[in-house]
């Protein structure tokens, strides 16, 4: 009887001693085989991207949410000329922030179902690889969102960049990473609390305020060309460095908190 149908089929052969000995996957004799770091990270990232591509859960909800925010905000002020340029920085990042929270909230959703995290913990794969893979995945999703939404912002709010436009991608990368790295970590913390969906923004927003200030101000400065954004860009870079280090140092502890 072939065990190929979706219905439960009995085992096709009864393994004899010899077939079992041949068929049991044999490991190489090295006792201390540990998975090399970039491979695990890459494998996890690819898996997540593949699964997201199939379901498009995160991307769809993010884009739609950002769009809603843009439209609703447009009711609160008149998006013409000078005013728009001054306010747009804040608006754009608020929209991205809210949309990012949607993505961050489901970072670990697939790992929680069926307790997949246990499988990760009982393997030699280092916890930080899992964290970085998740953070990078979120970073990519939010960046895709930004790339999709920015032209819309330019159109809706009649934006023209007066300052050095090449700084905008720099701000975007640094700012997005600041949100995503902490957000991925706090999403892991909120896994173990009640009111999971509320807990993530509740922890993330206060701690992210310096970074948010940096993103908003830097964007505004570049759009209006009024002064130099250097201070904010350096602040964002240092913020990213410090908090990435803190996340990497503490992630395994939080993963094993049981």
């Amino acid at each position, binding site marked *: 009887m072939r065990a190929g149908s979706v219905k439960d089929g009995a085992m096709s052969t009864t393994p004899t001693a010899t077939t079992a000995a041949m068929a049991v996957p044999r490991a190489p004799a090295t006792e201390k085989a540990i998975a090399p770091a970039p491979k695990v990270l890459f494998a996890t990232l690819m898996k997540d991207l593949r699964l997201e591509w199939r379901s498009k859960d995160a991307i769809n909800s993010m884009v739609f949410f950002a769009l809603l925010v843009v439209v609703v905000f447009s009711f609160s002020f008149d998006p013409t000329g000078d005013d728009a340029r001054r306010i747009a920085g804040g608006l754009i990042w608020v929209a991205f922030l809210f949309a990012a929270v949607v993505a961050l909230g489901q970072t670990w959703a697939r790992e929680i179902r069926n307790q997949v995290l246990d499988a990760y913990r009982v393997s030699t794969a280092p916890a930080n690889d899992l964290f970085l893979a998740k953070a990078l995945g979120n970073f990519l999703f939010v960046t895709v969102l930004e790339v999709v939404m920015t032209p819309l912002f330019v159109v809706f709010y009649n934006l023209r960049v007066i300052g050095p436009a090449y700084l905008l991608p720099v701000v975007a990368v640094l700012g997005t990473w600041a949100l995503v790295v902490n957000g991925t970590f706090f999403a892991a*913390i909120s896994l173990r609390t009640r009111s999971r969906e509320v*807990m993530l923004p509740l922890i993330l927003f206060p701690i992210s305020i310096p970074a948010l*200030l940096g993103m908003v101000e830097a964007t505004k400065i570049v759009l209006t060309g009024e002064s130099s954004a250097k201070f904010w860009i350096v*602040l964002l870079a240092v913020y990213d460095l410090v908090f990435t280090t803190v996340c990497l140092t503490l992630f395994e502890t*939080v993963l094993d908190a049981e």
Partner: protein
Amino acid sequence: MKTPVLIAIAVVVALLAFGLYQGLVVAPTEQTMGDVQRIFYYHVPSAWTGILLFTANFFASIWYLFRRTTVSDSIAVTTAEVGLVFWTIVLITGPIWARPVWGIWWTWDARLTSTLVLWLIYVSYLIVRRFSSGGQTAVLAAALAVFGFADVPFVYLSIWYFRTQHPQPVIGGGGKLDPAMWHAVLYNWLAFIAFALVLCWFRYQLERKQRDVEETLALESLLEGSPR
């Protein structure tokens, strides 16, 4: 209550009273703001005390992450709660001061805004503690405390720079402090530290007693079902 505790409370009350005297009577009246400025003697020492307590929380959390002792976790929750009390005092005295002087309750000035952000961070810390279950609470909270404390320099720096770019009325008065006023500030600070220590002590005792009860009940259930 035991005698040393009563003595400590008496000392604290005396210090607070003395500080009050210093602040309201001895210190000279400020020339531009008048007597309202005296709230400064509560606003500033509360802030300094709060910072001390949050720093203690940070070190207790780090200690917990390394050693996982109940003592360190108890200290962490105690200092966070008491620190938040003082921090709330800062947030309340700020607007009370601002209103008569500048006619507005709140300005998003650098210090007050930073205070608010820090307040939010530690409130979120306490909420996580409340909302998480069982043995995980201490670990998660300790991790969050590290994040919160690491954020402090960024909060102050970013908001300060933001405000130099977009100046607003400054609550808390910049500029130098008359030497005669320093006495009032320092005495009050001393009194507040003593007050904070007593509060922490009570809160800590409460925490320990709660844990003792938990452990006793746990031990009971442990011994109850011994093998037949």
